């Protein structure tokens, strides 16, 4: 789907940035790259442009430009209700964090069952049951 189709509060992971030339390069140099997580923050009072959060900073894009960006909708694990099965799409962190998550069976592509959402979060992976801090769950994106 296009980034312009996400609603405020929703998250997406960038699949592709279409287009060529200036538009394309400007978007890339701002960090709008395949693999990046982007959150829709709010829409301008008149409907366009829209504010997004990306890599910890905030940008505004016109709908026109946002339609060049193809995303998949994802949800932070922390927002998944109890009793849901999800698949890990992206882990936002450094090597250390990713390795840590790996020891709990949380890795890109793996299935996770949310036993209890809060608090703390209890999940079941193929390696067993684990509790997960909110800060961590917030950095794991699933579908």
């Amino acid at each position, binding site marked *: 789907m296009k980034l312009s189709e996400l609603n405020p509060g929703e998250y997406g992971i960038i699949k592709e940035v279409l287009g060529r030339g*200036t538009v394309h390069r400007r978007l890339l140099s*701002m960090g709008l790259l395949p693999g990046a997580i982007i959150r829709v923050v*709010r829409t*301008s009072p008149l409907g366009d*442009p829209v504010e997004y959060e990306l890599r*910890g900073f*905030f940008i505004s894009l016109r709908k026109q430009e946002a339609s060049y960006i193809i995303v998949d909708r994802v949800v932070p694990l922390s927002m998944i209700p109890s009793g849901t099965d999800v698949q890990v799409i992206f882990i936002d962190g450094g090597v250390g964090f990713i390795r840590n998550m790996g020891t709990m069976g949380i890795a890109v592509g793996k299935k996770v069952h949310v036993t209890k959402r809060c608090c703390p979060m209890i999940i079941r992976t193929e390696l067993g049951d684990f509790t997960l801090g909110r800060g961590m769950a917030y950095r794991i994106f699933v579908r």
Partner: protein
Amino acid sequence: MLVALAGNPNTGKSTIFNALTGMKQHVGNWPGVTVEKKEGDCIINGKKVHVVDLPGTYSLSAYSPEELITRNFILEENPDVIVDIVDASNLERNLYLFTELLELTPKIILVLNMFDEAQKKYNIDVHKMRQILGIPIIPTVGIKGKGIESLKQAILNSKKFTPPKIEYPEDIERRISIIEKKLRKENFERARWYAIKLLENDAEVIKKIGSQNREIVHLSEHLRHEIEDIYGDDIESVMASVRYSFAHGLFHEVAAPINVGGVTITDMLDHVLTHKYFGIPIFIAIMYLAFQFVFLVAAPFQDGLDFIFNGKNGVPGLVDISYSWMSSFMPAWLASLINHGMLRGLGAVLTFMPVIMLLFLILSFLEDSGYLARVAFLMDSIMKKMGLEGRGVIPLMLGFGCNVPAIMATRTLKDENERKLSIALNPLIPCGARIQVFAFLSYIFFPHNAAVVLWSLLMLSIAVVFVLGFVYSKTVLKGRTEPFVLELPPYRMPTLKGISIHMWEKSEGFLRKAGTIIIGAAAIIWFFAALPWGVEYGSEQSYIGMLASFLAPLGTHFGLTPDAIISLFFGFFAKEVVIDVLYVLYGSKEAIALAMSPLQAYSFMLFLLFYTPCVATLATIYDETKNKKFTLLVILQGFALAMLFSFAFYTIGSLMGVGT
């Protein structure tokens, strides 16, 4: 020693630059473009270091003038060290430019500015960062001057460092080195960088290398297609991804997030300031209050300066005193030229200054606080219709205060066409001086409907600006080439020092450049008004008077009386003078009211609304565009609109027999 400051916009680059150079700085333009160039000197341990502030950019591709300037400066001037100023509280994104700079030169110092803000978000392991990068890394808090001394020492002790290479994946590296070897053989310096850029399809580099060696360009084209096939993506995305993953990896290696969570102040403010229903009304209210502030504070200064130069109620001003003194020892005409012409001109420039400086103060405050970006966010939809981005609303609004700072404020628009469009439209916005004149004239000529008359003129000008903006942006000043990607930085309390430097820089620029032109113009006006020698100043026997009688038959088509024409001549100099001239010619309000029919009066006001911008505005337009033809077109545009509206109104009014 030559030092260049580079970095993203909004990282505190100006703050650091000011801290390094103090007041010893020079502001100009980069050759050929309207991008500001700031330079200054800094004495470190008795050694003089020349500091150049490069424009803020997000990357070093060749797509915007800012990027090209930064790149070419490093390539051509080969500074002894580059100081990359990053916003440490937004480290990952900022490190992207760093990776690009690193590819260009190993002589680099990394400044982690906004370290205070960064520490609220994560712990940065500076020591580890130094180990990984092998270059000096200086945490600073620009607004507090923290870390500036260490930065100075690091600059002095800088040498060729040995930072790590940005490694691309094997299949790309192999192709880079093929091109690199070829370039080496041809004795190119910075062969790796050129090789990467060739591969990356960089238009500038291809042009440059292609003019010397077509074969290498063909080779790199071939290799590029291979990479694109392997990765199934275009080369730009592939290369940018590699750089970003370097930045991403480095960032996570050295920064451990502190889980603060919760709502930030910026988020709370944005909740209100960009609110669905309140956002735009709040913006209008803020601007309204800002204007009230400007005029309230400026008025006494303006009156004071006016009094000093021109006197009041029989008390002679500087102009008269100096005139009588000078005429005792030099020919009267020369004394008159110096005093009635040039000194009065200087007075006019100076009386502009309070408003101009205060408007700059407002502008700097909007910019430095981060609110300007929100205004752009709020207004973009509306402004887009007239071919401008959201920020374009600010110069137009400042225009209601004074067109001079408003036109200088168009620098916030990055797109060249949008900037031109914005400059062309700005003089059509009635400035404070014109609104004053209209308020006065409406009151004299239409005592019962003054508010309606004034309101109608304001609405007309706004409508004209919109329509022309729409038309121009669809025809002669067509669309932007860059996407409108706008960063919304966190709100920050601007510092007094930052704002005053900003304000002074701009105001001083106006005084110096426009000042000379205005004083020159004042001399010319004097020439027409006072000659032939012996006639009463500005009377029918003077050249201006003669010109006015000559133009009178033409003027009747637009409802302009000869005296109205004379006042328009003087209005070219400064619009508020129109009232003074009418006063001098008629002696009293009542007499002015009788001099024109209501129909003529309104036609006259329509003419006054649009005809040529005043000298100060023209000087500024020329100075900002360095384009004589464009400046001339702005004058023509004004006259065309003035003639169109007053002719149409006067003709239709006469035919219908109203107000004659």
